[in-house]
């Protein structure tokens, strides 16, 4: 399993993701520059957090036109594992690879804090190592992470079980008080219908070692690394 971590101008979580892949999980790692035109044989591509292209115009709006994004779209079409974290989630929505959009937090504040996430899908390559209805403790760090989708899209996501993570209280109850940003239905992460493109606002790469106060994020990285279902990349 070879991981590729995409670097745009303004990306800031690339080294954190790379560190977890390389130093903690021990998987093969390469960085992918936004101007690259091939994915160097990666099985899983991570779009990390940050402010790609300064988030000018809208978060993710310019990044989606990077030369590498065309390759990434084709990669996802072939079934390759694509994982957008924070700014990466915003890029995936702007690129139309996931439905909906991330808008300004309801509080207008930049929120940097621990959250609890209810895991609603454990049959995915990203969450295979999570227990059924697991509650993960993973931090967020964003100003524009409020998930929005029109009613039809939202009900389609719910009906098809595409909501992977929901903000919850520490005991796993999905309540308004546990929602840090005003996301509809407490949504923290969604997957596409095929199950190979995941977008999430919380940062698993920031809680993959005990020194950082938690290791729940490691479950997701290990799920992908140990993914027995060989990815269908041709």
């Amino acid at each position, binding site marked *: 399993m070879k991981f590729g971590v995409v670097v745009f101008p303004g990306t800031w979580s690339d080294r954190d993701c790379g560190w977890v892949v390389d130093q903690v999980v021990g998987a093969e790692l390469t960085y992918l520059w936004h101007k690259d035109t091939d994915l160097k044989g990666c099985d899983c591509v991570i779009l990390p957090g940050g402010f790609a292209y300064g988030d000018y*115009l*809208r978060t993710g*709006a310019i990044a989606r*036109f990077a030369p590498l994004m065309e390759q990434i779209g084709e990669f996802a079409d072939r079934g390759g594992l694509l994982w957008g974290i924070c700014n990466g989630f915003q890029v995936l*929505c*702007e690129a139309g690879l996931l*439905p*909906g*959009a991330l*808008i*300004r*937090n*309801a*509080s*207008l504040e930049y929120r940097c804090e621990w959250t609890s996430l209810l895991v609603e899908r454990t049959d995915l390559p990203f969450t295979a190592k999570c227990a059924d209805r697991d509650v993960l403790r993973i931090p967020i760090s964003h100003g524009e992470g*409020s998930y*929005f*989708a*029109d009613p039809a899209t939202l009900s389609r996501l719910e009906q098809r079980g595409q909501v992977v993570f929901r903000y919850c209280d520490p005991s796993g109850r999905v309540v308004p008080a546990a929602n840090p940003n*005003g996301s509809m239905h407490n949504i923290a992460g969604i997957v596409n219908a095929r199950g190979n493109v995941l977008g999430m606002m919380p940062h698993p790469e920031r809680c993959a070692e005990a020194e950082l106060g938690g290791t729940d994020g490691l479950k997701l990285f290990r799920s992908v690394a140990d993914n027995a279902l060989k990815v269908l990349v041709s």
Partner: protein
Amino acid sequence: MIARVIVTPKAVVNDPQGLTVKQGLASLGFREVSDVRVGKYIEVSLDTSSEHEARQRVEEMCRRLLANHVIEDFRFDLVRDGQHR
């Protein structure tokens, strides 16, 4: 030719910025303010003299980049250089 593009959050999208500005205006005594929506104003200068062509191109720019149709509406008008201020 200059296109004056206005991008606003859709009515169904929460606009916490607008809400905060509304509260600010209320605290200044502007009690008659019933709603505020905060959007963006974008000026695009175009090297073209055909208004018809400019309209089509700006429409496409809005759809493909300047606005996100999931959360935003857009509208624009066109003015000749030097007439817009």
